[in-house]
């Protein structure tokens, strides 16, 4: 098969794979951002045991490779409890990957949120307090936007990393874009021994990270009206 014959076939496969990549990306954001907030609030609570539990979790998750976490979450239920929690198909693999990614990214977001909130000078709280504001008003009307501005750069870093990290789900055979690219090496749809589709997946990542970079730069600019 000539290259021009291969190209549309490969593109179709890569598009399907990238859709799965994007699905994992958005599900992770949707789960990890709220969970990260909850963890951050817990980590700042005055209840010491809760803080200790969250800090340990964050240390374990951030201190070990995401790939290992993926493998453990995918295989552990089946190996230990003889009940393959996730089922065998693509949907099971996706669920396992989503859980692993949500937990992993929630821990990173948690630390960013906590740092952002604690980084706001206490003078802001105190100024609100002496003006008779309620704690919720102080948080939402005074601190929140300052926190958002402060955490936007590290958050955008994490999100750009996430789109690339989704490729790790290849290790449990999730049919994301790397898997799709690789399939043409072993043979798929009449194409075999072709390595260029795998390399070509890089273009998808570049486009995605390029768009994210532009979006975050815009957001940062929007928040540059104050310091």
């Amino acid at each position, binding site marked *: 098969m000539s290259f021009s014959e291969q190209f549309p076939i490969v593109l179709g496969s890569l598009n399907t794979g990238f859709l799965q990549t994007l699905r994992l990306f958005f599900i992770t954001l949707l789960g990890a951002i709220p969970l990260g907030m909850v963890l951050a609030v817990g980590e700042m609570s005055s209840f010491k045991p809760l803080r200790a539990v969250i800090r340990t979790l964050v240390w374990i998750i951030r201190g070990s490779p995401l790939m290992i976490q993926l493998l453990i979450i995918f295989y552990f239920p089946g190996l230990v409890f003889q009940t393959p929690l996730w089922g065998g198909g693509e949907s099971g693999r996706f669920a396992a990957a989503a859980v692993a990614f949500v937990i992993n990214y929630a821990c990173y977001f948690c630390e960013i949120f906590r740092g952002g909130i604690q980084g706001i*000078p206490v*003078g*802001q709280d*105190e*100024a*609100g*307090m*002496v*003006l*008779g*504001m*309620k704690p919720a*008003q102080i948080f939402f*009307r*005074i601190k929140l*936007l*300052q926190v958002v*501005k402060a955490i936007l750069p590290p958050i955008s870093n994490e999100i750009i990393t996430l789109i690339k990290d989704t490729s790790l789900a290849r290790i449990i055979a999730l049919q994301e874009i790397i898997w799709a690219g690789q399939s043409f090496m072993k043979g798929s749809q009449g194409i075999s021994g072709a390595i260029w589709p795998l390399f070509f997946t890089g273009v998808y990542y570049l486009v995605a990270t390029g768009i994210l970079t532009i979006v975050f730069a815009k957001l940062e600019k929007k928040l540059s*009206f*104050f*310091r």
Partner: protein
Amino acid sequence: MAILEVENIRKSFGSVLVLDDISFSMEKGTVLSIIGSSGSGKTTLLRCLNFLERPDTGIIRVNGETLLDASFPARDFQRNIRLKRLHFGLVFQSFNLFPQYTALENVTLAEKLLAQEKPDWKEKKSEYHRAIEEHGRELLAEMGLQDRMGNYPHQLSGGQCQRVAIARALALNPDILCFDEPTSALDPELTGEVLRVIRGLAERHTTMIIVTHEMAFARDVADEVIFMDGGKICEQGDPKEVFGNPKQERTKQFLSRFSET
């Protein structure tokens, strides 16, 4: 009747006694100046008055109403703390303006939030807003900032920021306005404009407690001076007396250190 009565306030941080049996009172429309070396407890005293710290012992009364009696349980301190705080205003050394709000928004935000608690807020929202903004404009104009209302704090000089902070504190009409070294964070050439507006407030008989290292200003503007040392009131009286003819050895030492520099 005294507008403010403070009785036997004690406060320690850990084992360090920072305020040691502070008692004083002041009359409505007067200016009390608090001087003393760094670490003598001046900021802590203002923070106690503004319910940012809970004293270990003591009583705070405003217009005869007991706002704080430290012998009551801690729960009492928290109850209605927001409303108790409104009797006092506090201008911080470091301004603590809200960076994402313009000068005018800084001044009006708290008043708008408080207006939400009014029973007829829903029906009269826009009238309230208009009145509050008008009030905010007046206050800023009074501070000489009529041209700066739409500016964000980072676009203002330190002296302008501090004047916005003063307008912000005045917006809620506190019974007693407290200043914690309002010019200490400013370049020397900017202190004048801030001291000038405070002087203006004194002329209109705003009740104020001013912690300051500006001795000439304190002497000029205050009706009463307290010299604090090691958490205690070491000397108190008419500024002419305290500055001109201090009784205590510690006061003399402190003031002489100032006249040298």
